[in-house]
Every structure is written in C-alpha cells, then in structure tokens.
C-alpha cells in the first residue's frame, strides 16, 4: 500500500478505489454508508458511497469488501460473529448478564450456550467470571439487546476453538484497534515468523517464553486480552504480567517491529525471565 486514501465524514469514496470484481456483491464495512443520490430525471437514482468516519480506506479484493479504518481508541460496537471477552455481572434463570464495554447495556449469554451444557452440566459462573464468547446477534432497532454465545449452535461445539469460561490468567485492556490487529495477526497464520500487520510482539514472546512452558492468549474485539501461563509458581505470574505489559506498551506507543523486539527483550530482562 503506497499512499493511503484518507477520508473524512461526508467525503465520497472514489469509485476507482473500489474492488473491481463484479462476481459477488460489494460488502460494506464500518465507516462507509451507501447513500442514494436523488436525481431530478425520472426514477433512475444513482448510489454513492460516503464515509461517515475519518479513516483510511481499505479494500479487500478477495472478499470484495470496503471499509474505513479509523482511530484505534474508539469504543467497541458489537457486531455479529465478533469474538469478545465478557465479564459476568449477574445471572438470572435463563441468562448470564455480561459486561462487554463499560457504561453500555449488558449482553445476554444463555445459561445453556456452552459446549455440552445441559440443565445439569451447565457451568456455574459467578459475578466477575470471564467468558470468551462470540456475538450471536445484535438485534434490530433501538435499544435492542446484544446476545453472545460460547457454542456454535449448528455443531454444538465451542467453535471457533477456545470459547467458554476463562479460568485463571489475567485480563489487560488494550485499544479496540489493536485488538482487531492482534486477531488478524494471530488468525492469518502463526507459524511463519514475519510480521503480520506489523506485529511481531506475540511471536517474539512465544519464542522467548517457550522454554518456560509457553502461554495461552485470547483476544476480545472489545479491547480486552486474556493471558495465562502454564508454568509453575512465580514464573507464571511474572510471564503473564510481562506479556500484558508488552502488549499494552506496543499499543500505547504504536511501536514498529524493531521496537517491539527491543521491548520484549527489555521487559523480560526487567522481570528476570530471560535466561
């Protein structure tokens, strides 16, 4: 990508920047609105794409999508199929009421929306417990409730993998933009070592902490990241905190790949984790 096209609200998306495949319909991501241009002559009104946020225009020719990438600190707005980390607020007969973002309505998680859950085997979650869940519906219209689930209703499995209660570990707050980046980076492919979306911090940490047993990580689109280490005793806590610190300062300071590597080395040395 050479020169990014930056749009402000109200700007038209120039048509020569749109993916040219005609086979399947164009999908609109966040920040782009389809407006009709009321034309004076007859009913043939044309359509125009305009930006509703400030951001960099990104297109995906393969999936035929167009969206705007805006500032990373923005609030998370639930979208179907997003993976999020939610915290149980309280439970009622049918649902767990979960906090997804501060100061917003609680999301509903069915008591039986877990892998293999029946009335007898459902997980007993208490206030403050964490779940890794998928947004199953956001409802329609004003004041609609967000529903989340930890199971794929079609297969009855916790798909994609890892959905369900998160036990142990620790949650760190990151910006929503960084969370999206982490998800993209980890989902693309973890094995080849080069930077995806300019992120090397996780692969670097993985390499360095391999000896002490590695770690588990879950990234929620709502700006939360959960980290747990399997190592025994103090090392587990130390590594968890080290990982959290690395992620947060990569996010806050917008570090490039070399700085990320430096940061990992520095933090691990400070925490006396590097051998």
């Amino acid at each position, binding site marked *: 990508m050479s020169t990014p096209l930056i749009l402000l609200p*109200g700007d038209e998306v120039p048509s020569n920047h749109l993916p040219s495949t005609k086979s399947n319909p164009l999908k609109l991501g966040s920040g782009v609105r389809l*407006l*009709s241009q009321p034309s004076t002559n007859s009913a043939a009104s044309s359509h125009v794409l305009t930006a509703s946020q400030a951001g960099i225009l990104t297109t995906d020719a393969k999936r035929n999508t167009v969206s705007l990438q805006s500032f990373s600190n923005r609030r998370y707005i639930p979208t179907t199929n997003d993976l999020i980390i939610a915290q149980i607020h309280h439970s009622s007969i049918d649902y767990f009421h979960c906090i997804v973002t501060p100061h917003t309505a609680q999301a509903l998680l069915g008591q039986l929306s877990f892998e293999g859950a029946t009335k007898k085997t459902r997980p007993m979650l208490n206030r403050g417990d964490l779940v890794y869940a998928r947004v199953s519906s956001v409802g329609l219209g004003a004041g609609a409730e967000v529903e989340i689930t930890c199971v794929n209703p079609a297969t009855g499995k916790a798909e994609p993998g890892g959905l369900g209660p998160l036990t142990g570990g620790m949650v760190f707050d990151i910006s929503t933009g960084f969370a999206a980046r982490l998800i993209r980076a980890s989902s693309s492919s973890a094995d080849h070592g080069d930077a995806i979306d300019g992120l090397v911090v996780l692969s670097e940490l993985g390499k360095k902490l391999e000896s002490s047993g590695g770690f588990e990580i879950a990234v929620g689109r709502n700006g939360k990241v959960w980290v747990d280490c399997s190592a025994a005793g103090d090392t587990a806590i130390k590594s968890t905190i080290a990982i959290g610190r690395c992620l947060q300062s990569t996010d806050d300071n917008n570090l490039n790949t070399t700085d990320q590597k430096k940061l990992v080395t520095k933090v691990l040395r400070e925490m006396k984790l590097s051998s």
Partner: protein
Amino acid sequence: MVSAATVAPAAPQSLSLPPPQFARLQPHAYLLAHLSPPVASNQPSARANGRAPSQFRVTSANSGSLTHTNGSGMVRLGDTTAVCGVRAELLHTEDIPSWSVSQSSNANKRRRLADSIKLSGQSGDHEETEAEVEEDRAHIEDLNLLVPNLSLSTGCAPGFLPGAPPAALTQALSHKILSLLHSTRLVRAEDLRVWYQPPNLGPEELERHNDEEHMDVDADEAESKPAEIKAFWVLYIDIMIISLAGNPFDAAWMSVLTALRDTKLPKAWWDVDNETILCSDSIAESRKLSLRGLPIPSSFGVFEADAAAGWRAVVIPDGEKLKAEEKKGTVQKWILADPDGYEEGLSQERACIIVDKEQNGKTVIVSMEKHGGWTVDTEDLRQLVDISARRWDEMKQIMDQC
C-alpha cells in the same frame, strides 16, 4: 370522547380521529396538512393554530402591575406569559473591594469623564467618546450592576415539577438576557451612579490651606474639585414565566424591556453628616431610566416538510444545490414566526433576530442567531430581518401604550 362524536357524526363507522387526537398522534403530519392544504380545497396555507407562517401571536404588555418593585412589566404572547420585576438596591463604593485601587489609578481619566458627563447633560444627545463607553461598560459589567434571574415557575408547562433544580433552559435564558443587556448597553451606567459633589471649600478651609504650602490656591481649582461616585444602583431583574406555551425568550425579554422602561429610581444623595446615602421618598423627585434604544426580539422555528429526512440515506445536497432545489420547490420548509409549544416540538432549526430602529427609521440588527439545521441561509434571513423590523413597529406601539 363525547365531543368527538358530536363533531363528526356523519361518518361514525370509518376510523376517524378528532383533530386533537390526530394532533397528538401524528404531530408532524397534522401541521403539514394545515400548511399545505390540497389545492382543490382552496384554503390558504395556515398553521394548526390558525396563524399565517409569519404571523405573531396576539401580544399585550402591561407595566407597573407589581407595586412593591421599582418597575415591573408583564407581557403576554398568546399563552406564554412573563412577569418581570425590577428591584433597585444601593451598592456603596466603599463596599467594592477594588474600587479605591481602580479609581486612584485612573483618577485623572475619571475627572475628565465626570466633566464631560456633566457637559453632556446639557447638550443632550452627543457622540459618546470611547473612554466613556469603556467606563460605562466597566461599571455595568465588572461591577455586575444588572442581575437578571429567570425562573420557569412550577406548572407553567407540564414538564416543570416542583422542587426540581433550574432546568438547562432556565439557565440558558438567564444568560441570554444578561448577555443581551450587556451587548446592547441598554441601561446607562450614568443612570445608576449616585454622585457626590464635595462642597466648595469654605473660607476657613481656604485659610487652613493658606497655612500650608498652597499659598497660591485659587478659588477656581477648589471649585472644580471632582465629583465622586458614592454608590451605584444595582438592578435585580427577576423574570418569571408563569405560563409557557413556546417562545419563552421573546416574552421574557419584552417583559424586561417593559419593566426597565417603567423603572423609577428614587433621588439619592450622599449625606455628609451621617456619612451615608439618603433617598427621597417623593415620587416627584424620582427619575426614570433613560434606555438606549428598544431592541425587540423575534424568534422563528423552521418546520421541514420531510418528516423522515433523518431516516433517509440520501446524499445531502451542498449549500448552493439546496438553494436551487428550494426554489424549484422540491425541498419544502416553512419558517414559523413566534412558534408555540406544539410547533417548537416539531422544529429543530431555530432563529432569533433582535432588531432596533434608529431615530431616522433605519433598522439595526442587534443580535442574529440561528442554529440546529442547515436550511436557513442568506435569503431566508433577509426576509426574517424584514419581518422582525415590522414586528418592531408593532411592538413599539404596544409598549408605548402601556
């Protein structure tokens, strides 16, 4: 509803709603139907309340109705009623913490000013010098000599409950009135000053002077010893909206105007022996305020024909195009003068124009505000200014009669 049955007995079977219910259920459609009647019906376009778009409600003003105040006024704008009382209290200059400092630093300026003010008293109308304007401003604004306070009384409209803190609207109106009092410089600081002219130096005092080094002091200088301000009148302007049916600002400001025009300040003087200020209780000796001009407000609300404009995902035409479309009539809107409560709920875009007229009849805009939308622009504002100027003539008559 019993009344409904009597109104429309002709078609009892069909689903028909009496007008008041229709107005509540579909306020936008109701007003739109009134403003754009079918061509066949041959009815003129009028608002739901029967007024033409640029017609104001019947206005009446009354002054001096509150007897315990220095001045009072009541203004009725249809069902919106505002009462205003002005109470004057004395503020001694010795009670002003920064007074002596600020006065000694510009004592010379003050002396010159005092002279020129005395002069101006004789010559009547004259161009004010910049220094005078500044002095006027400093006294009124920095010493807070005008204290308006507006309250929307409990029950003036359904939304006002007893014991609730002042609504944002109340506070905003109070501020608007105060800032308008300041920016129009309606009240003259001179009217609020209580002067004291130190007496001519008596012969014995002259002698005392002679004992000292001022051997060559002459009577002239003694005579021109500067007059000093001993106190100010502070005007507490309390406005109460006792009934609110839209357009509170116009009613409130005009009640302030009526009250200030009615305000009489008793003659006050510095009593040297008692070292205090005495006031005369004779009405004959009291004097009225001489206000600068008569700024009359006219408020407008914009009613857009397209109720679903906010829902429609269409390209918003830019400024010039919008004007062109309005001319063609594809985009329809009505600018409603003096909107009542019902119409205020249906208009987002508001405009308020305050005009005054000079002696020669030239219209001067004192304040012009519009916000909340993008449909009103130059051409509309020009028309609104003309309407406001006509409103000024009308209001001047009403105010002069009361």
